[in-house]
């Protein structure tokens, strides 16, 4: 992405995603000024093709914006709105304004479309839906009579039971029994596996952003915290751990770039899956090292570190944890066999 775009994102989140906003969001206050600024800047449309309302940004630029938002732990549904727009645009449906989300996100949850006169009825329950309570509409990948279909479900046409992740981001249960006009539904052009892969790509990019922030917070801390008469970063034990943390951050960024390539291309399950798993592992190792370096202060509500580490601890599990994706990747490797394994990797 261009430096200019990155700078404008950094400025926006610095101005609007400060400590008070993050703290209030944990208490359930939606950060409307932040969200308005994100929408105003056009970030929510960054992943959309121009004909669907996008501004011609590349997928890499859109993911760059998302990565920066995650580095600031911005408590807004930017990734989800991008993902919903992606799903709607692939189905040829218009993308509405406002905060959006997608459903279902858990593999066992099902929403079903049945014909109802000229229109449709959508029924079912979906759990762990990100930001459902704040969404103006939810893009649903439903099972229809003719195969997977996308339905645009506006606010008010479903009930929401609050739930959350470890970072207090909304992960709600929605229950739907809604009548929808014909124009709100279209054949999906997207399978459940593809939506899951796209969601995994989004979370991979976010993890890379959050982990880069974990690194910078922690390096800053060990350079200033003095014990035994010197900054603790002068001790080799700390230096070695910081090098490991930097390595994990770099690996997560590489994984995010692989996931971005997949999202821009054919959504290779191998590329997305390996990326999600690798970034998830990096998140676990990196968050652990960061808290260890910080000692007690990093464990407090007052200090910023937890806003990013708590997100990492949920994002690594959302849209498939390391075990799920590694199993898929490993299965592909086993099926490729001894002579097909390397060609599989180079074609990913």
């Amino acid at each position, binding site marked *: 992405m261009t430096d200019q775009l990155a700078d404008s994102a950094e400025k926006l989140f610095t101005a609007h995603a400060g400590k008070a906003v993050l703290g209030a969001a944990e208490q359930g206050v939606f950060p409307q000024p932040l969200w308005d600024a994100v929408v105003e800047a056009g970030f929510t449309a960054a992943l959309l093709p121009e004909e669907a309302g996008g501004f011609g940004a590349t997928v890499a630029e859109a993911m760059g914006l998302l990565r920066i938002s995650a580095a600031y732990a911005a408590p807004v549904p930017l990734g989800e709105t991008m993902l919903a727009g992606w799903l709607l645009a692939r189905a040829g449906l218009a993308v509405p304004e406002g905060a959006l989300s997608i459903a279902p996100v858990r593999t066992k949850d099902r929403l079903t479309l049945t014909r109802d006169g000229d229109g449709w009825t959508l029924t079912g329950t979906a759990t762990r839906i990100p930001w459902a309570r704040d969404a103006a509409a939810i893009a649903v990948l439903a099972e229809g009579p003719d195969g997977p279909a996308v339905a645009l479900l506006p606010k008010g046409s479903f009930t929401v039971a609050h739930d959350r992740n470890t970072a207090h981001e909304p992960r709600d249960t929605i229950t739907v029994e809604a009548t929808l006009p014909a124009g709100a539904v279209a054949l999906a052009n997207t399978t459940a596996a593809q939506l899951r892969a796209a969601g995994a790509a989004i979370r991979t990019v976010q993890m890379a952003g959050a982990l880069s922030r974990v690194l*910078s917070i922690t*390096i800053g801390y*060990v*350079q200033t915290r003095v014990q035994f008469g010197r900054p603790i*970063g*002068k001790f*080799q034990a*700390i*230096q*070695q751990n*910081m*090098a*490991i943390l*930097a*390595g994990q*951050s*770099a*690996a997560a*960024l*590489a*994984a995010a*770039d*692989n996931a971005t390539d997949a999202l821009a291309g054919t959504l290779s399950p*191998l*590329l997305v*899956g*390996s*990326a999600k*798993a*690798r970034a998830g*592992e990096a998140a676990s190792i990196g968050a652990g090292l960061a808290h260890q370096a910080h000692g007690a202060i990093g464990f407090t509500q007052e200090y910023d570190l937890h806003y990013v580490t708590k997100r990492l601890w949920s994002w690594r599990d959302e849209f498939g944890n*390391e*075990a799920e*994706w*590694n*199993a*898929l*990747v*490993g*299965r*592909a*490797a*086993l*099926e*490729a*066999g*001894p002579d097909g*394994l*390397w*060609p599989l*990797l*180079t074609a*990913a």
Partner: protein
Amino acid sequence: MQALTFAPPPPPNDQTEALRHEVRDFLAVELRDRPAQKRAESWSGGDPAFSRKMGERGWLGMMWPKKYGGHERSALERYVVLEEMLAAGAPVGYHWVAERQSGPNILKNGTQAQRDLILPRIARGELCFCIGMSEPDSGSDLAAARTRAERAQGGWLVNGTKVWTSSAHKADYMILFCRTGAKSDDDRHAGASQFLVDMKQAQQGGMTVRPIIDMHGEHHFNEVSIEDLLLPEDALLGKEGDGWKQVTGELAFERSGPDRFLSSFTLLVELVRELGPAAPERAAVAIGRITSHILALRRLSRSVAGMLQNGEDPALQASLVKDLGNSLEQEMVEIIRLLTDAEPTEAEGNPPYSVVLAHLILTAPSFSLRGGTREILRGIIARGLGLR
């Protein structure tokens, strides 16, 4: 905090993928009868005849100017050849060091005569190089090197001892790191230089190479003692006193390639063969994890290749690739051994899988030692992070 950013790697194109298939076709024929236990040697296994064949194909010195026998191809094309060779377990060890770092060093720092003499021969796969850096009292601490070259009538008179010198018994040339001046109080890296040493001549005039057998029973290392060896004036490589700078310039080439994360790849291939497609879930997850690590590392490593081609100095990024890569190479052995009930052994008559497993168990400790220890790499990374 220094920017630890990796530039986007050069993207593959039709040309690189055509080359990839050309290399695969070549390897399918050349390695048809190479057993798994030999493939497992990775870039420690060498064969001069194989290196010459690579030279004939134009796969050595690929990025160098044509006037030095090179082929003026891209970093990514060279990368494709490297990774295909390693993944297939090709015997690339004879030319590896020469092509990876000695050639680029000579290209950058050598005299016209040195370039004309050496580079075309490396590109033809005719030369094996060794690196004379470590000494009995100078391992990770290279600045403690005591081998000294003094100006003398007709050139330089060298005295000292090098140790852990891989391939010194086979090499045509050594790039020797030694003291030519004094360290200064504020710069202990000052006063060092590099020399291009003709090994055959040297061994007739004051250099003695003695084997050091490793715990695996193999002869890679040597001790090289140097007593009143007279090197000609024109053996100096680069500028007198610039030895440290030149050595650190080699490190990005030395530490960032696919040789830093594919050393155990043959074991993964043999595991997949051993388990078959119906492997248990536990094995699929473990194999997937290894694969996920390889895919991320491959991106980082290709990124460094692109940065090197663009003339950047990715020494820090290279250290990071090597640290992550070596950890994976070693971890792979420990993960994979738990996925079957095979016991490791290299004794004849045992199945290839057991032999490859034993080979990797017995060589893996070296992965995080050779080319810079894990601790040194992490120290370099910490310096890049602003902690030292």
